[in-house]
């Protein structure tokens, strides 16, 4: 292990940047799991789907992946709303969400991944954009734009989401639905509709997260699975429904992973997020910003 201050600074910096991206990856689950209590472990699959959508449009039309993702957001929203409707009718209404609901999402994860393999194969796919390649230098710091740009857009996304949740009626209804169905009904708001909207938003974020992903690294169908641990580790650590908590937890994870990878080697990287998750669950399930 060669220790150098430069190496350390760069590891921490890239950890923070990647953390910003991880926050975007997780924010959808912060809504679906953190607020709505729906264990959507298929979320990474939708992110990968987002990546492939960005990939197809980028290679066919040369459109920037982030632009594609923004345009695709309404489609993902509809997809999310549809999936929630099926979930609600089949499981939530019947009280079966713990076993069968989980199995449902697991099945979706699986189907999505295998379908992508069948259609695209297991080769890694890349996108092309102006900011993939060059880096920004700042003192001893080396920040590749392909990570910096998604990080900044991620943080913007989170800020927008937070505004929606805190300032709009729909947003506050979403926060409320988790806590008190009955009160919502009294206000003539249908909790099912609110949850459907919320879940739709959750999946919509996957579209953007997918674009960020394929900008940062090459993607193939099974990449999603690595992210399951990261996503839930960050969600739990960040205090479940708290978006600011998500950002902090994401950056923390990014830094720890980066340091581990730099000083101990990348083969230990998957264990970091999952190990952190286990630790958090065992010690403090309410996370850092505890609920």
């Amino acid at each position, binding site marked *: 292990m060669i220790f150098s201050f430069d190496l350390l600074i760069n590891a921490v910096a890239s950890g923070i940047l990647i953390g910003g991206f991880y926050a975007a990856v997780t924010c959808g689950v912060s809504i679906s799991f953190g607020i709505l209590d729906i264990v959507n472990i298929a979320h990474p699959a939708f992110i990968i789907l987002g990546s492939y959508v960005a990939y197809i449009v980028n290679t066919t039309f040369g459109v920037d992946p982030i632009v594609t993702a923004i345009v695709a957001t309404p489609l993902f929203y509809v997809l999310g709303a549809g999936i929630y409707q099926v979930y609600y009718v089949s499981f939530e209404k019947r009280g079966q969400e*713990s*076993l069968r609901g989980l199995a449902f999402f*697991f*099945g979706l994860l699986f189907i999505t991944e295998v379908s992508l393999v069948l259609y695209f194969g297991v080769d890694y796919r890349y996108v092309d954009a102006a900011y993939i390649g060059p880096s920004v230098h700042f003192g001893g710091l080396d920040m590749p734009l392909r990570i910096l740009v998604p990080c900044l857009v991620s943080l913007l996304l989170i800020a927008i989401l937070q505004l929606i949740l805190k300032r709009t009626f729909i947003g506050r209804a979403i926060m409320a639905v988790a806590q008190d169905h009955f009160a919502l009904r009294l206000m003539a708001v249908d909790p099912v509709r609110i949850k459907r909207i919320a879940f739709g938003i959750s999946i919509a974020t996957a579209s953007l997260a997918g674009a960020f992903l394929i900008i940062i690294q090459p993607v193939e169908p099974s990449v999603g699975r690595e992210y399951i641990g990261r996503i839930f580790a960050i969600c*739990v650590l960040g205090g479940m429904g708290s978006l600011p908590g998500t950002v902090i937890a994401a950056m923390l994870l990014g830094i720890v992973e980066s340091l581990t990878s730099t000083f101990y080697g990348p083969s230990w990287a998957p264990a970091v997020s*999952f190990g952190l998750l*286990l630790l958090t*669950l065992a010690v403090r399930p309410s996370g850092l910003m505890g609920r």
Partner: protein
Amino acid sequence: MRTPLFLLICFVIAAAVFAGAIAFGNDYVFFAGYVVLQYVVLSTAWNILGGYCGYVNFGSAAFFALGAYSTVAIYKFYPLPIPLLLVVGGAVSGLVGFGMGYLTLRLRGAFFAIATLALAVVMETLVVNWDYVGGSRGAYIVRPEEIYPIGNYIRYLFLIMLLLAVAAITIARLIERSRLGYGFATIRDDELAAEASGVPTLRLKLVATTISGALMGMAGAPFPYYIGYLQPSSTFGLEYAVNSIAMPLIGGTTSWVGPLIGAVLLGSLQQIATVTISSAVNLLIVGCLLVGFVIVAPNGIVGLVHKYLQRKPDDFVGRRHVETESPETVP
């Protein structure tokens, strides 16, 4: 039906299966049959925690692989006979099951499920980085040609798995009909009310994870001999997780019959499909069946049969748990 009689019937059927396989004339039936029987054990084991208690384990592959890697670790030291390896594999996986349960069973079911996923990945990473068992390069086990008095080694492996399958379903059936089975059902239905009724829920859940883990480890112990070359990526493969969940859910989670039916049907289907179509399409079918059944037939094939026959629960021998639709007003 009392257990000794049940066991006798199982042994008779098992003997018939074994004889039938020999009569088939092609050793391939042993190779394929081994995998199906392995899934009978895995599904039954999964169902003890998942179907009976309602706690979903996504990390079946980890327990299975632990059994397999225990065998490898011991093999490098001194090759023990398989029955002993079963015990070791079972003990290791059972212990890990207990440990994992102890860490996570105080949490709600959803967190437990996620934790099992995390555990599987951590286990895989540890194994990949452990050079003694080959790490990511893999490990070779030399399968003996023959073993007295059965002859062909693959037949021996098939027989072992057949007996293990009988043991697994007997254990599951025993649990179902015992006080433990009642306790598991209350944990599944309403853990809070179970505690208030005097059921030591944490203790029972630990029993479930330990037994479930141990059985999965036993299913994995002979695997290195079967496959010859063990690699972490395939041993920890997702198909174990999906199948051990899909088979009980498709077969029916409320009794020992469900996982058996699910494993035999789905397992055989996959063996045929892998030969005729690609294995990726095979997995896609499993995924679709899982989602389909879970939405349309939540009680699985067993549930569909019940409905078709339209019998009342007490017409059957012993206790039958039937999944019901909870009215919305009951919390």
